[in-house]
């Protein structure tokens, strides 16, 4: 049984946003009515960047608002899309006259509400482009009619690269192209040893047997490719890496950006073990991890699990990745 540190669960998201903004008074500002977090000092004369989605994935998205990354983040309830009206307010807040790129994880509700907000913001002569993030390899069914792959941890890469490009003065089309390229090249695999627990609930979203691992789990506790036997850190890492290597057709000499991501209830010792294992496995295959991020960036409440995201990296992407960023959750 998990008890949550919460007041009225109804107020969780607005209170948490308020707490975040109070903790970063020089960096962030809050537009409380629409649960929109903006930079404290709005940027001028650059392409605006907005993202958002359901809550429960913190630090995504509001933790990535700041110079060099998002202009605006908008938060829905836990695991629920923000409404079109919220996204509209967020999109308007992100506009500085050069158009707005909307970075959207591929879930029906999010896509619907962002598309609608984009259409309506056209009334105010705001140009928008949607960049869809759909990196979750576990949901790659090849079915053109289906909802497509889910969006998960690659969102951080897309937000970072687009953020750097926008900051450097790229046009709406250029920023969107950079985002789409990153999204098309990044893939993620996830696994969970236990599910997260909704604030206010006592029981986790699903239960696993002592010997089971949920492979390909989603960040809302959605089921994945199936359950496989539990194994050690090196073995778990391989479970995630193998399908990624195959899908991305990684070869000796390739360079990648890697994210070893905790799903919320994973402690740093565990993440570092997976990072180590990933380095060894890829080094054995002659693939160099040129850049990496290890931490809990795209979470699913307190789910105990990990995801690995890999993206083949080119020089332009390296430059954009290395560009300065200053947000609550990512700074360099």
């Amino acid at each position, binding site marked *: 049984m998990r008890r949550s540190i919460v007041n009225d669960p109804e107020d969780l998201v607005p209170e948490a946003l308020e707490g975040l903004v109070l903790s970063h008074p020089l960096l962030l500002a809050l537009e409380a009515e629409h649960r929109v977090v903006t930079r404290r000092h709005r940027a001028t004369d650059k392409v605006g960047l907005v993202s958002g989605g359901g809550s429960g994935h913190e630090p995504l998205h509001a933790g990535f608002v700041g110079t060099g990354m998002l202009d605006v983040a908008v938060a*829905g*309830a836990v695991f*629920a*899309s923000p*409404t*079109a*009206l*919220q996204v*509209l307010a967020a999109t308007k807040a992100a506009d500085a006259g050069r158009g707005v790129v909307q970075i959207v994880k591929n879930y*029906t*509700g999010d896509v*619907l*509400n962002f*598309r*609608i907000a984009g*259409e*309506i913001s056209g009334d105010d002569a705001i140009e928008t482009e949607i960049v869809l993030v759909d990196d979750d390899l576990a949901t790659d069914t090849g079915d053109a009619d289906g909802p497509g792959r889910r969006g998960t941890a690659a969102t951080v890469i897309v937000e970072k690269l687009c953020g750097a490009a926008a900051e450097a003065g790229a046009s709406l089309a250029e920023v969107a192209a950079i985002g789409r390229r990153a999204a098309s090249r990044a893939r993620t695999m996830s696994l969970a040893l236990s599910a997260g627990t909704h604030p206010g609930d006592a029981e986790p979203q699903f239960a696993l047997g002592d010997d089971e691992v949920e492979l390909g789990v989603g960040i809302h506790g959605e089921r994945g490719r199936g359950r496989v036997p539990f194994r050690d850190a090196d073995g778990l890492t391989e479970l995630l890496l193998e399908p990624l290597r195959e899908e991305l057709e990684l070869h000796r000499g390739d360079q990648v950006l890697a994210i070893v991501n905790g799903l919320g209830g994973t402690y740093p010792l565990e993440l570092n073990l997976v990072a180590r294992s990933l380095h060894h496995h890829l080094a054995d295959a002659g693939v160099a991890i040129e850049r990496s991020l290890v931490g809990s960036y795209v979470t699913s409440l307190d789910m105990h699990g990990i995801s690995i995201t890999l993206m083949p990296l080119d020089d332009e992407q390296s430059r954009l990745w290395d560009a300065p960023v200053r947000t609550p959750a990512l700074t360099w």
Partner: protein
Amino acid sequence: MNDQTPSRTLPAGFGRAFVLTLREALVGSADELGDLDRRAGDGDFGTNVRTAMKHLDRNLEADEPSRYREWLTALYMAWLGVGGTSGPLFGMFFRDLAKAGEEAGTAAPTIAQFTDALAAGQATVQRYGEAKVGDKTMIDSLDPAVTALRAALEADAETTAVEALFAAEDAAVAGATATAQTIARRGRASYVGDASQGVIDPGSAAMALVISSARAGADGSGVANIGWIA
């Protein structure tokens, strides 16, 4: 057919009457609509309807609309602030209805403008929601309503706007009740599979209330037909 003939104009104050009638109808059937979504969906539709109407009240208070377009704008913005699939879809649907007031100025739109707006709204809902007729969605009452409305107006130049809207209402209610025979292929209800059989789709019922309210806004009665929902 001349829409400017008195029998084919919608009355002054149509926007107000339409929106307030719909408000009453939705508030009055929110429990039933919620139950339907609980039986064949994820159960949040009642809450979504109530939230939309709360937003509507707030918008009406803040904006004090007078023209048709302003009334419908208050309505569409109310729905766009709601979650679920119904929030954005009804929002965009009513946004198209609002546009019908663009050329009308202070007057209500003509029945032809209103009919075109309903058709545009249907197209928008289908563009975003990708539902076809028979998928057990709001389209299942909207599509026959639009067809019936057009047919009535085109069949006989003497048919009044109110008569045509009665025909549309009948078609909408029939379409909605018929969804009980189908299995959901869109929205959350599609996850429950066969279990949706036997249950009226709540979104199609709500859409029938929309048509019913338009009729009641036009005929001056100010009361929609809600008794058939259960």
